[in-house]
């Protein structure tokens, strides 16, 4: 049960999650069949390695995947978030999620 944790992150948090599953809400900047470049909630750019058959039709998506390194995520899945998303709001939410006052208490199932 506790292994299914995929914390929401922005680009600044990626280095802390290398090898782990994360969710990255982002805006698609451009993409081809193998990879996409996206802008995370804090404005940083991340490269997403795509796998086939996952529809990324909207401008804003939440990429669920494994962190390869500080700027690359290997996608496992994706959720369309529409064409209008306030990334500043999303970033503020992500920063609150990671705030030490709340993180362990509310966003990690084991502790």
């Amino acid at each position, binding site marked *: 049960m506790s292994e299914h944790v995929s914390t*929401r992150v922005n680009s600044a948090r990626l280095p802390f999650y290398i090898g782990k599953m994360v969710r990255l809400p982002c805006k698609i900047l451009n993409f081809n069949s193998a990879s996409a470049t996206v802008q995370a909630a804090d404005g940083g750019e991340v490269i997403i390695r795509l796998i086939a058959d996952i529809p990324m039709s909207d401008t804003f998506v939440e990429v669920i995947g494994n962190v390869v390194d500080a700027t690359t995520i290997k996608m496992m899945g994706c959720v369309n978030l529409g064409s209008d998303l306030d990334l500043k709001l999303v970033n503020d939410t992500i920063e*609150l999620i990671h705030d030490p006052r709340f993180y362990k208490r*509310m966003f990690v*199932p084991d502790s």
Partner: protein
Amino acid sequence: MSQYNDFGGASNPYYSNGASGGGYMPTGSPFSASGSPGGLKRSEASHSLRPLTAAQIIKATQAHTDADWMIDDMEVGQVTIVGQVCSVQAQATNCVYWIDDGTGRVEARHWVDSSNEEDAEKWSGIEDGVYIRVTGGLKTFGNKRYINATHMRPVKDAHEIYFHTLEAIHVTLILERGPPLGIGQAAQPRAPANATAITGGTNAYANQSSSVANFDEYSHLPALQRSIIRFILEQPHNDEGIHVAAIARAIGTDGDALKISQALDQLMDEGHVFSTIDDSHFNVSR
């Protein structure tokens, strides 16, 4: 003290709430030392709806089956969560969904009445990968916990996901610390301005900073009533109570006798003060 015998019963017309101060007990409350305004009565908490993350639900504890669920020492009744459907299993009598919101996975079950067609339509928008909002009560089956879903619907605007996270943080903080400071409390750092606004007297309010902590529960009252209570509280404890003339002198020329006696009547109606040896002496209910 024989005069206190009247106060527990219904015979005193002013005193409908007994000594409990209308639920704002500053001591004996399990929730915090200062009688936290976040201290809901038990029955209220179990009927209220709490936004949570999956991690919080997973960490909820239950003293024994049929006992209430507790999260952070706060009773939980109905919950709501926003997450992605990661699996749907339709069975004969129910439908099992697993919801993943990034902090963990929880199970939600919806008991299906298959003869009802409307029901079937209502639940059709929910498939793998879609973000939904689930509302329902926390239950156990064997040793597994699940949400008994009374309401599930797809999320229409992606902002709802982030709103829900923020709301969960907000409610968790309110339950821990009480609501954000109201007008009464906010006046504390501006004590000099506060004192002149309410009355001309400054001496009686010299101890404001130490006793203000107890005024959480009075911050919703009008200024005159607050200052009456504050004055009574600052006098040395006296079983005979404080005479209304002393209160009137301390409040200053601002409150004429009629206003003060009306304020005292209102305070008695709410149970915050009670009369002691006669109708002119009052004490604060504690």
